[in-house]
């Protein structure tokens, strides 16, 4: 049944359908509405049995999830941005221990400067942690992905992070078709842990592993993610067959069959991109879009196949590696391993900057005319940058750049500094 609800609400209700047994969370925008909703359901008794634990930090949130999962409970939490970094050590640990925790990441920029708006810097920061990272294009997919995430996580004993663009999705109200409890119950069997703290069959979990076996442990984790490359499309297919909805999978191609230029992107921007592609197609340009749903494991083969016939690939990223360039772009380049294809990176939407249709059209137009620079920062205010650069060269104590830029735009009081 289609309901007009906020993305966070849809995610919370879907998570509840998955019957999580331990939910713990520490509030951080833009994740708050999700855990508030889950907390309310537990408090009201509509989600039971479930322990909802208000912890003192994200580090504790992930740690509680680790303890719960190792004791055989289905564990869920949600976070964003700084919170993810604060729990980073535990994020790695959960993956290292092979605990099938599911976490929603309401993607948000990382400070400083502090910024609560959307980009993908947080997700990129933990890409090597061993978690499976699935990116939702829409709120419908965001909700659906959580069911698939629990199934995948528990089958493989690997934690799964569902990445949902903060505010853009989490706070957007749209029509969403929520799943039925009976369906989720049949789709997602009860959690059968691979290892569990059990007084009847005691084991020691979390040993210290030295050089003699560490590489093997890491390689085994890699193999489990390769297994996920098999299971992710299968699960998406099963889900599709049951619901008729195309949620999940490894990649999502859009009008790429004959495309000369293919834009690769992740998350909510794909919707705008598709609209833009439609527009450009109408103008006669052979353009297409490739959405990457599974960022980890990275579906190299699927990407390679999808991009095989393109002459130019533009990777549109909401994150970048300072001092290097695109993050997703690097993975795409390795996956393609084709020198004849032109690869361009466009960094866009950092800290929540709107990615407009107009700007995207410009990108596609430039790409079609092969006028894109190897690394482009979309809608960058070059003047502001230049002014700050000049200031920094002129004065040693030039002050914080962020405040300087804002002052230039008259968004903070001039008197604040002078």
């Amino acid at each position, binding site marked *: 049944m289609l309901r007009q609800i906020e993305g966070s609400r849809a995610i919370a209700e879907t998570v509840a359908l998955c019957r999580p047994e331990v939910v713990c969370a520490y509030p951080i925008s833009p994740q708050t509405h999700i855990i508030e909703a889950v907390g309310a359901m537990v408090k009201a008794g509509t989600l039971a049995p479930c322990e909802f634990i208000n912890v003192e930090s994200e580090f504790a949130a992930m740690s509680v999830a680790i303890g719960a999962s190792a004791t055989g409970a289905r564990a869920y939490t949600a976070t964003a941005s700084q919170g993810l970094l604060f729990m980073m050590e535990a994020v790695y640990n959960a993956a290292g*221990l*092979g605990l099938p925790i599911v976490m929603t990441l309401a993607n948000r920029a990382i400070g400083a400067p502090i910024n609560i708006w959307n980009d993908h810097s947080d997700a990129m920061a933990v890409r090597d942690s061993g978690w499976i990272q699935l990116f939702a294009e829409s709120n419908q997919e965001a909700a659906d992905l959580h069911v698939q995430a629990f199934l995948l996580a528990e089958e493989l004993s690997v934690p799964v992070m569902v990445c949902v663009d903060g505010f853009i999705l989490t706070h957007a109200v749209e029509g969403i078709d929520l799943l039925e409890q009976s369906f989720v119950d049949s789709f997602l069997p009860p959690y059968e842990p*691979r*290892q569990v703290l059990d007084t009847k069959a005691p*084991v020691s979990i*979390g*040993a210290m592993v030295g050089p003699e*076996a560490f590489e093997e442990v890491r390689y085994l984790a890699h193999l489990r993610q390769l297994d996920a490359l098999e299971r992710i499309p299968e699960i998406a297919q099963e889900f599709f067959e049951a619901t008729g909805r195309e949620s999940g999978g490894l990649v999502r191609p859009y009008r790429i069959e004959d495309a000369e230029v293919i834009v690769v992107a992740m998350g909510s921007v794909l919707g705008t991109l598709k609209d833009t592609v439609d527009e450009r197609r109408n103008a006669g340009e052979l353009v297409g879009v490739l959405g990457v749903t599974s960022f980890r494991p990275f579906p190299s083969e699927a990407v390679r196949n999808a991009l095989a016939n393109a002459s130019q690939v533009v990777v549109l990223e909401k994150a970048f590696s300072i001092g290097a360039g695109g993050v997703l772009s690097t993975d795409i380049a390795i996956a393609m391993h084709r020198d004849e294809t032109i690869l361009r990176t466009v960094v866009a939407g950092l800290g929540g900057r709107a990615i407009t249709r107009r700007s995207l059209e410009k990108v596609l137009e430039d790409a079609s005319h092969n006028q894109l620079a190897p690394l482009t920062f979309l809608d960058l205010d070059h003047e502001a940058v230049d002014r700050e650069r000049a200031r920094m060269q002129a004065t040693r104590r030039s002050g914080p750049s962020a405040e300087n830029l804002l002052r230039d735009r008259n968004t903070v009081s001039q008197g604040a500094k002078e």
Partner: protein
Amino acid sequence: MTIPFAITLDVGSSRANHTGSWRVERPVYVDRLPPCNDACPAGENIQGWLYDAEAGNYEAAWHKLVEENPFPAIMGRVCFHPCETACNRVQVDEAVGINAVERFLGDLALEKGWTLPEPGSDTGKRVLVVGAGPAGLSATYHLRRLGHHVRLVDSASRLGGMMHYGIPAYRLPRTVLDAEIARVIAMGVEIQLNHVVHDVEQERRDGKFDAVFLAVGAQIGKRVDIPAGDSSRVIDAVNFLHHVANDDPPLLGRRVVIYGGGDTAFDAARTARRLGATDAVIVYRRNRERMGASGEELEQALGEGVTVRWLSTVNKFDGDHIVLEKMKLNADGFPEPTGQFEELGADSLVLALGQDTDLSLLEHADDVAVRDGSVEVLDSMMASPSGIFAGGDAVPAQRTATVAIGHGKRAAHGIDDFVTGRVAEPKERHELASFERLNTWYYADAPRTERPELERIRRQTNFEEVIGGLSEDNALFEARRCMSCGNCFECDNCLGVCPDNAVIKLGDNMRYQFDYDFCKGCGICVKECPCGAIEMVPERN
């Protein structure tokens, strides 16, 4: 479950890692000689029988006790208990009341009718024991257990020697004495009382004895030359006590002066009080610190109204007055006359100045060496290679019943070796369990239980026993104050304090063993062993 590789491990797998290889020193369990056992003249395994008593196994304790000494009830009354002097517990609070527990066990045995071990099977060897005092009776007991025939002769009409004729009944009730002696005699002993041995060689030949044990005691009171108007008013203490023991007390009058500072002097003074003396005054030429009798005895005597004139000698006795000369101690602690005199009213004077031994029976025993009135003996108590052994007051040693009992036991084993032609093997002696080896933290503060004393007023007028026995509760308490110095008593400390679980408990009364596969040699078990029964030794390579 198939657990994940490397990060998850099956329990207990560390036992594959033998940390014992780290060790440079290893702990080993040892047994050390407890100071009480070391000090006991009778050679009792005191700690051993206390161990059983601690558990309330009194019969087992008694049996362990009489392995060495057949007279616990007597010893529990008259022993001067050097064990308690040696007891390490003195340095914690007070010595364990070993003597009181011994008496408790002895009395309980009499009450319950526990019997001594059966005599050994007959060896056909015959032994003559001269003197039925503690040495002679002890030797008789052990010889009978070894299966030898014993003829026990004594010049007196009753068995017991000085235990009967020297120790007053208020210290050693005759029922107790007789009962414990009777138990020995019941093992089958040929007894000849009222028989004086004049020539030991003759007696031996006549009786075809394979060996002889001389335990003739020291019966002759020493005399000093004191000018006395009426010599009938001067009596030696041995004689006096002997008469009292024979129910024939001499008339001493109301004012009795006893000259001497040993146990016998106090026995005589306290006996005199009981016979009606209003004044019983001990005159001693040294001071209290240098007195021969025990402090315990002094306290009891003072409590009964006996008085003591320290640093005084008897100069003259005229039948009504004694002239005392005051003494002072010189730099070496010897008393010197001061030339100051005083008078003391006295109806009689009892001399308690020591005893001599009558060794006339050895006149024809040429190979027995006598020096200073005592028979010279080897460690085995052998006085002559022909098979004459001697012990008790007749040989140079402290003259106490306990020492005599020890002599009797040693002589019995010496005689056994002699008559069987065996060469005695030297006994291995454990290292002494000194106080420094103990970890006394673990011993609870538990003060000694005093035995009840008869009300003082009562003991001034009769011969009832002065010191009572311990109740069972008290005896158990007292036994449990034993620190078991030098010998494991299964407190489980080593088992508990090992950080490597390398101590294996073998079960109750079976102690422990080290698991050297895992013992890293840290030494905590040694340090925390309360009784010092573990030591570290260098690891063998």
